[in-house]
């Protein structure tokens, strides 16, 4: 014990209570575990050589003088925690929920009482350890993480012996067939996930829009005529007739309908690989329909600015110019919003002339 590294307190540094350090003496008979009454194995010798270094904690008599004050403060904190804890239970029983106001009232009472109870316990425990327990600083020696050379050599030896005995190296047929046997087993956890969903097929290329399908106003689910949608600058959200509650359909087929003043809307005729993807011929009375699903990662392109004709996606700020075929003018979206071909039916309602002529929404590998 005498070679224990002595750490000196901060002498003369003005610290109020220098850490108390006592270099160890042999431990007294451990009493917590009795005196070995029923084990009879007190004389076992193994393990005696790895006694951990013993340092004694300071005696109770070393406690600071203000201990009794601290004791009262700790007790006060715990009593406070008790009262607050009871308060929580009382608030739980006494306060009804079921309306916005009553829920907020209940939340305030429950949260406050819980907080006070927890703060009381926290401060009680902290003052206990800081003010009541004697200040100590202990030094613990680190053990070597590396095993002894003897252990490492023995390990090597056992490993080589064991490997030799198993003949894993010597018998390639066993080794290779074992590896072979594990291959399908390793693949099974992947294979059995197959039925988590159908194959995509070409479903991402199509929506439910088809010739003659009416455009319904989102919310009212009523069809609309060009005459009803005549205020320039107006923009509404459109869902396909027959699928107004089908979220899977709406996630692809939702459309933004915008009315322009004459001459403002100028969509150049654009083709992609022989397929027409944008033209003025798909508009009706300066009314144009664009997919509402952003070509970036699929958020609804929800903001329309009348004066600039900009469609803005609030998620990542891809900005499209609605007056020129929803071309991208800023942001990460890689291509314009697809245009839905429009016409009117016999009753004068706006209907789709056909499906979108290109996939809507985000890019995917097979999109091309």
């Amino acid at each position, binding site marked *: 014990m005498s070679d224990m590294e002595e750490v000196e307190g901060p002498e003369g540094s003005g610290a109020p209570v220098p850490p108390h350090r006592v270099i160890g003496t042999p431990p007294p008979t451990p009493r917590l575990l009795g005196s070995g009454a029923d084990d009879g194995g007190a004389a076992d010798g193994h393990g005696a050589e790895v006694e951990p270094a013993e340092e004694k904690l300071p005696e109770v008599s070393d406690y600071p003088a203000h201990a009794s004050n601290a004791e009262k403060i700790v007790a006060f904190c715990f009593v406070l925690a008790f009262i607050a804890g009871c308060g929580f239970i009382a608030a739980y029983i006494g306060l009804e929920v079921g309306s916005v106001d009553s829920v907020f009232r209940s939340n305030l009472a429950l949260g406050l009482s819980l907080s006070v109870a927890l*703060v009381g316990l926290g401060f009680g425990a902290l003052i206990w350890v800081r003010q009541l327990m004697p200040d100590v600083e202990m030094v613990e020696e680190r053990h070597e993480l590396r095993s002894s050379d003897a252990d490492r050599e023995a390990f090597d030896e056992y490993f080589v012996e064991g490997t030799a005995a198993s003949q894993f190296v010597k018998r390639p047929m066993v080794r290779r067939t074992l590896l072979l046997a594990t291959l399908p087993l390793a693949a099974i956890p992947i294979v059995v996930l197959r039925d988590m969903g159908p194959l995509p097929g070409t479903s991402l290329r199509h929506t439910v829009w088809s010739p003659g399908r009416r455009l319904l106003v989102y919310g009212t689910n009523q069809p609309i005529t060009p005459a009803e949608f005549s205020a320039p600058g107006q923009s509404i959200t459109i869902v396909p007739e027959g699928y107004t509650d089908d979220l*899977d359909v709406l996630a692809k087929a*939702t459309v933004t309908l915008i009315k322009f003043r004459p001459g403002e809307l100028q969509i150049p005729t654009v083709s992609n690989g022989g397929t027409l993807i944008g033209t003025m011929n798909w508009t009706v009375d300066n009314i144009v329909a664009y997919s509402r699903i952003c070509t970036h990662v699929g958020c609804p392109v929800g903001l329309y600015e009348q004066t600039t004709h900009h469609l803005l996606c609030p998620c990542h700020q891809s900005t499209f110019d609605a007056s020129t075929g929803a071309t991208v003018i800023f942001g990460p979206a890689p291509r314009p919003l697809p245009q839905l071909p429009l016409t009117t039916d016999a009753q004068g309602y706006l209907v789709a002339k056909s499906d979108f002529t290109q996939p809507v929404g985000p*890019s995917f590998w097979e999109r091309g």
Partner: protein
Amino acid sequence: MSDTIDVPKALSGTGSWLDDRFHGARGLRVLMRKVFPDHWSFMLGEIALWSFVILLLTGTFLALFFVPSSAPVVYHGSYVKLNGLTMSQAYASTLNISFDVRAGLLMRQIHHWAADLFMAALIIHMLRIFFTGAYRKPREVNWLIGIGLFTLGLLEGLFGYSLPDDQLSGAGLRIFEGVLQGIPIVGTYLSFFLFGGPYPGDIIIPRLYIVHVLLIPGLILALITAHLFIMVHQKHTQMPGLGRTERNVVGQPFFPYFIAKGTAWFFFIFAALALLATFAQINPIWLYGPYSPVQISSASQPDFYMGILEGSLRMMPAWEWNFLGHTISFSVLIPFAVPLTVVLGGAAFWPFFEQWATGDRSYHNVLDRPRNAPIRTATGMAAVVFYGVLWAEGANDVIADYTQIPLYTVTWIARVLIFVGPAIAFYVTRRICIGLQRKDRELLEHGLETGIIRQLPDGEFIEVHRPLDEEERAPLEAKKVPALMPAPGSEDENGVPAPQAHGALGRARAIANRAFAETITLETNGHGNGHGNGHGPPEEHAEIGPGELPESSIPHSDPLLWHPHEEPPEQS
């Protein structure tokens, strides 16, 4: 244990009974006296640990009431504004937890705040570990486990806040789906398998639920357990100080000190979360409304820990390739993969890079002060700025709104800053570190300014300096500098090139080594170049008295920046 304490018979009997069967006394005896070093920054990891405990407690409560189902129901609950609306059972049951279950709203808000605190604590804890070099041998594996925990925490949070199926979280899930589709070759399939068909489908909520409440928490719990066991086994690191060596731990014992402090800390963290849940509303899903793929609200922001991904997506220009009939969407792939790979991959790679560059394979139990490792600290700050720019860009619309800077300008500033910012941070931090090292040397050589001005007999005024005492000197003198390797292209006297510095990799290593070995020499931890090793008494250089002139007492007036281009003294 004092002889004066009488152990009650019941405790003694139980203790004996248990030890007779489990041999517990031997291990617990050591554990009780396990020493925990005291430093405020060592409590950061504990915040994450206790937050996780609180997440398990509150999450279990929430699971008793939450219905993980997309099946539509017509709402007739207490929140009258949504009365009669069709919504998923997940959303309806979350409303139910908020308005019809007593303490439900409190639990929900504590749970959400605890998730944010968990991630914040992980980030700050990892920064502490990085900047003090606590990840060095033998603790590299625990550092990697920490990075794994952070990654799992990201996923756990994303899946968790997607569960209520409200408008905001639905937007997050939609983005997740869009990103998934963007993965080359398998993306479409992954999306269809995960969502059970086209988005959104009706099975994603139960799937996210089981991952959120069982799979990921189980993995996190297992990793935390491994993390703590390894930490206990390897023992804590400690800050440099008097009497603290690589071979000891100085602090207070586990029983009763650390138990009491750790428990108090748990209560404080729980209390802080309860106070937040009481006064700071978080995720008021009843205001967002049930999810519909048709709707979106402006200023949609995810929880803060997803901000880096959100910002990357917003910052990215619209790059996309079409070739051979296939689409590769870089405007999705790069934001999704690159930033997190740079930050987390870089963090995982760093300990091994540092070992390679410094050639240092020794154990490190005493931590570095960040100033004493300028390259590491500068790299860390560069990463912080990189992360910070992406994170802030995730709220570019809010920033534009507050600052009145046009939205696109904000994004363009971020696009420039993402490259320039880290470089500036690196340079500035490195200069600050070296400046602080100079200040340390100054303190060691001349002591502290006392504020006492004296007049010398010849009329000159000087300020009296007080030498540092032993305890003040210890942390300063604990500085360690990596050894220099042979310079690139250096040869011995026979013209044989130094093997370590050979080839392109060797040259890179030698250059990196030179950067790591740069330091301001202290007279006491003699790097061996020049003046004496100074292990003598501290008074040697720091006399108080009228005789000392600040100028004349500097033995070498030029700043002793150790120039790596000089011939290393160890090599001959």
